[in-house]
């Protein structure tokens, strides 16, 4: 079934730009990335879009579709009202490079700063560990993350308050949680989370959870338990007393 639709795509670069309208044919079953590709191949050869797998597994094609942070490859046209023009624009939280492509390198720098995973000594002589599935389930949820950075994009601490140098954002709280809750890990990141990662800035509005394409319960399962651990470690009077005498 073929019909036509109008897409308003943001064109421009770091110094500025605006929406440009494209009319194109669409078929049932298409996703937004298909439309962007069709426009690119036929009307705007130099249109910049970042993508890889087109199967929701790599997290490259993050953008804002009708104002909502989403993966272009997983947004079907049937979910959109095609009577009206569909707007597609780059993520707002990161510097613009060109058209739909943003500079997400800040995320990679943040990750490097977080103390890495260091396992305890192996449980068996062949250098392996024993863990029950129930113990790894929780961490496996966090490791589903495809690093699309949509949670970073929607987080108001970053998006509106631009506290990129004080707050690592939901993605990296999930990353830290995955290591903190890994039964094998021996590192202590709680001090780092409080001092350098700005975990206190998160006020649990759960916007990140809502946009996660992997349906990770970012706030409930990662951030809140981490906050509790930090609180227990630094603000529990008994523990503080214990620390003094340790």
């Amino acid at each position, binding site marked *: 079934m073929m019909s036509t639709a109008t897409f308003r795509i943001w064109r421009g*670069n770091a110094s500025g730009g605006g929406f440009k309208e494209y009319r194109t044919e669409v*078929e*049932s*079953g*298409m*996703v937004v990335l*298909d439309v962007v590709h069709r426009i*690119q*191949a*036929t009307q705007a*050869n*130099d*249109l*910049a*879009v*970042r*993508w*890889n*797998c*087109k*199967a*929701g*597994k*790599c*997290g*490259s094609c993050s953008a804002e579709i009708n104002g909502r942070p989403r993966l272009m490859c*997983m947004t*079907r046209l049937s979910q959109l009202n095609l009577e009206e023009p569909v707007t597609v624009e780059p993520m707002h939280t990161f510097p613009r*490079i*060109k*058209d739909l*492509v943003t*500079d*997400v*390198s800040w995320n*990679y720098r943040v*990750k*490097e700063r977080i103390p*890495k*995973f260091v*396992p305890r000594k*192996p449980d068996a002589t*062949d*250098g*392996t*560990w*024993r*863990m*029950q*599935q129930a113990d*790894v389930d929780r*961490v*496996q949820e966090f*490791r*589903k*993350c*495809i*690093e699309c950075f949509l949670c970073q994009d929607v987080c108001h601490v970053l998006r509106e308050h631009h506290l990129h140098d004080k707050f690592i954002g939901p993605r990296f709280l999930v990353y830290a949680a995955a*290591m903190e809750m*890994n039964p094998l890990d021996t590192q202590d990141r709680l001090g780092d989370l409080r001092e350098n990662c700005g975990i206190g800035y998160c006020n649990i509005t759960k916007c990140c959870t809502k946009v996660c394409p992997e349906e990770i319960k970012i706030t409930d399962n990662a951030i809140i338990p981490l906050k509790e651990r930090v609180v227990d470690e630094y603000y529990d009077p008994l523990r503080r007393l214990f620390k003094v005498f340790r």
Partner: protein
Amino acid sequence: MPEYQKFEFDVLVVGAGGAGLRAAIEASAAGVKVGVVSKSLLGKAHTVMAEGGMAAAMGNVDDRDNWRVHFADTMRGGQYLNNWRMAELHAKEAPARVKELEAWGAMFDRTKDGRILQRNFGGHRYPRLAHVGDRTGLEMIRTLQDHGIHQGIDFHMETTVLTLLKDGERCAGAFAYDRERGRFKLFHAKAVVLATGGIGRAFQITSNSWEYTGDGHSLAYHAGAELLDMEFVQFHPTGMVWPPSVRGILVTEGVRGEGGVLRNKNGKRFMFDDIPENYRSQTADNEDEGWRYTQGDKSARRPPELLTRDHVARCIRREVKEGRGSPHGGVFLDIAWIKEKIPNAAEHIKKKLPSMYHQFKQLADVDITKEPMEIGPTMHYVMGGVKVDAETQMSNVPGLFAAGESAAGLHGANRLGGNSLSDLLVFGKRAGEFAAKYAKEHGAGEIHNDQVEETACWALAPFERGPGGENPYAIQHELQEMMQDLVGIVRRQEEMERALERIQELKARAARAGVGGNREYNNGWHTALDLRNLLTVAEIVALAGLTRKESRGAHFRDDYPQKDERWGGVNLAVSKGADGAARIEEIPVKPMPEELKQVIEENK
């Protein structure tokens, strides 16, 4: 002289998927200075899409498993055209590579006694694939990435290599551009490791990501390396077929490993109709035995749905061609039926195959816990690649190494599922190790400016031709359609000859490709530059396919439908002749040592 930034490395790794990252980690552990360039952002490479798992004979689920069985399975799957030494190293070293990932933070699914769980897969005699649900590739790439960023490796993301630089016979580095700004970068390196993956974007229906434009294959070929086994292109039996925009996206073999079955439109399990002779003794002859196998019954043989990919793909094609296919030109893959067998089947399916559940729900409005999926073959993998030394992974060009999908040898005529991720780890490590060794033992080669100038001039030409030139996207689409039609899953002489003619025409058009705009993140320009690699590999696949006059493994010819003993003893190598034309050569398979022959015998 063109403007460029210059970087100095001991080892330059091209590609940041499983093989590239593993190579970089190993090289940097050897104490040399390592750079990695990748076309996309870190952690996005095609490895991320691998689903089922990595094969390693750890024997955690079935203690009858060991490297000897894995070796024999791999050789049988590859129809004995594999480099047997690579198959041996792979089977022996894979368990250590998997365990190492756990030490770096990977979280595999567990057995009841807390060890790494292993699952069934096509062509593997015992449950052998370490996995994390159906997102094993993501787990692997993230583990390597998160470990690698603390190893002092210099990453150049979104950077594409245009050419390898030569100093006489040896490799001296690479000339590249960054995709963001379009600036040139020169990497002066003592050793270069190619880990660029495959060639899927030369075909129309593929499970591969956009990056798979055959860069490593083509760069190596133009630098004088030999490519081996290029006629062997694997079509995975189960890709999505509907809606059209998702056609080709992979549906993991894990679905069949968990008990999923293939049926035609009459509801018949057609895989029982055609079981190849060399697999008959290992294959179930009734539905009940097949089911018991997937549920861990050690006395049962595996269901015919888990035969090798080449065979299953051809059976599906036959059903469709003979009018027994599904509404959108595929067949049915049914996992929902297991509700007849186990309680809470829907939950079980969602737990074991979460990505598949979401993929079908979101992209096709199909609930796989309730209804069957429609699937059909999709171009998935190239067994062929750079011919390398089994131990070191060095090509015939000194200082140039290759690992993973861009290298050839391990898989022979057909790769077993699960052997790819373990390939990346085993030979990525070896390539990194020996590239570092090479770098330590040899100084740097010299950079010759004429090569740099020539490449820069060629790379900028599409802008001079401007938007009035040939549309690069149109050329790419035509190539993909043509390869799908003429050099696809079933081949014949006239069609491949026609393909070679069409490739010459497309080459001429690619030389006239033009783009508008500027060098800043210009996808049109990137596409124009990728065309050279795509056309190079397309030509070599067609040429090798035309030359091998038999059907074996993934290479199936309508005009020579049988295996031919003569061809069973040779690999085909393609190299660039002095006149610039492709030269093809038969290389006799090296005889296997007695002890390995015996391993094969005892596992028959």
